[in-house]
């Protein structure tokens, strides 16, 4: 089970701004280990953010997204107290889902 994400969601004007840090190696599959063997690709492929059941962002990622990914985005239609749920799945089929309450 992957480490939890750190999610922060705050109201900014008439929108909600979300900042999320995910714990993931994001191996490109290009790197060699100390013995010279290629370290296989291992990276988040899909990210979804939902609020009140509605998808507010979805993304397809490749291994070129930086390790321990940081993502920030903004959307309308939610208020303080609502919950943002962020889910990622990687190319190993691992999944992680965390949620945060929108702060005023």
């Amino acid at each position, binding site marked *: 089970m992957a480490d939890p994400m750190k999610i922060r969601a705050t109201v900014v004007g008439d929108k909600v701004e979300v*900042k999320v840090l995910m714990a993931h190696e994001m191996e490109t599959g290009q790197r060699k280990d100390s013995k010279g063997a290629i370290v296989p690709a291992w990276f988040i492929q899909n990210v979804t953010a939902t609020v009140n059941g509605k998808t507010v962002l979805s993304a397809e990622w490749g291994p070129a997204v930086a*390790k321990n990914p940081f993502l920030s985005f903004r959307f309308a239609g939610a208020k303080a107290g609502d919950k943002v749920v962020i889910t990622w799945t990687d190319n190993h089929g691992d999944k992680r889902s965390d949620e945060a309450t929108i702060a005023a």
Partner: protein
Amino acid sequence: MRPKRIAAAALAAGILSAGLALAQDKDSTSRQIERYREALADGNPAELWEARGESLWKEKRGPKAASLERCDLGLGPGVVKGAYTVLPKYFADTGKVEDLESRLVTCMVALQGFTPEQAKKDPFGGPGKKVPMDALVAYIASESRGMPMHVSIANPKEREAYELGRQIFFYRGGPHDFACASCHGAEGKRIRLQDLPNLTNPADARRAYTTWPAYRVSQGEVRSMQWRLNDCFRQQRFPELEFTSPASIALSLYLARTAEGGVMDAPAIKR
């Protein structure tokens, strides 16, 4: 004689303007690098280590199934807030000057029942390898954020360690005949694009010391002072600086003392 003088003057002017152009390029490069660092400041992956470290501090581990919450980091058992600002320091229970990592080893042994070898094993994380030590360091350092460094050398052992640290700093050795001071002992030094802090200068020492531990982007890991010193030794082609060795602690104390008053801002994020 006149043509020669004009040629010489033209040449000098040419060199001068080229020098100015180079200096301007360097300034704009420095500015862009500053911009890069600022852009990374918000959303530091070190927070993931801080969270893991806080869990590890509270988790019952080891043969004694105990947490680290009674560990004395220098401000009394269990006091984490501000502890990083007084380390390294002399501890009566071990009779030694200890830094944060050696203190964590002490507590892992005394409270949790690990052997010293187990506690010191794998101190530095790597790709796919998570270790407790760097997470604990990240958490404890974060609890001193915003607070000034105040290490003491009142105790004779602390004074001795400080003097030893200073000697090590200036000690030339290894195949390159380097000392720490070779890179960090004078103003205006640089390796490729990295401006090197002059660690004998309190202002530079404060800036440098208060931003370790740090998430090193090039490493993809949170790195501590123990790691930083170990890696400097590696880069100088010195023999390996043993984890939590008296030499490593002495060097830390010398640097922490020179950074007196510096406000902690760690874990930071660095290249």
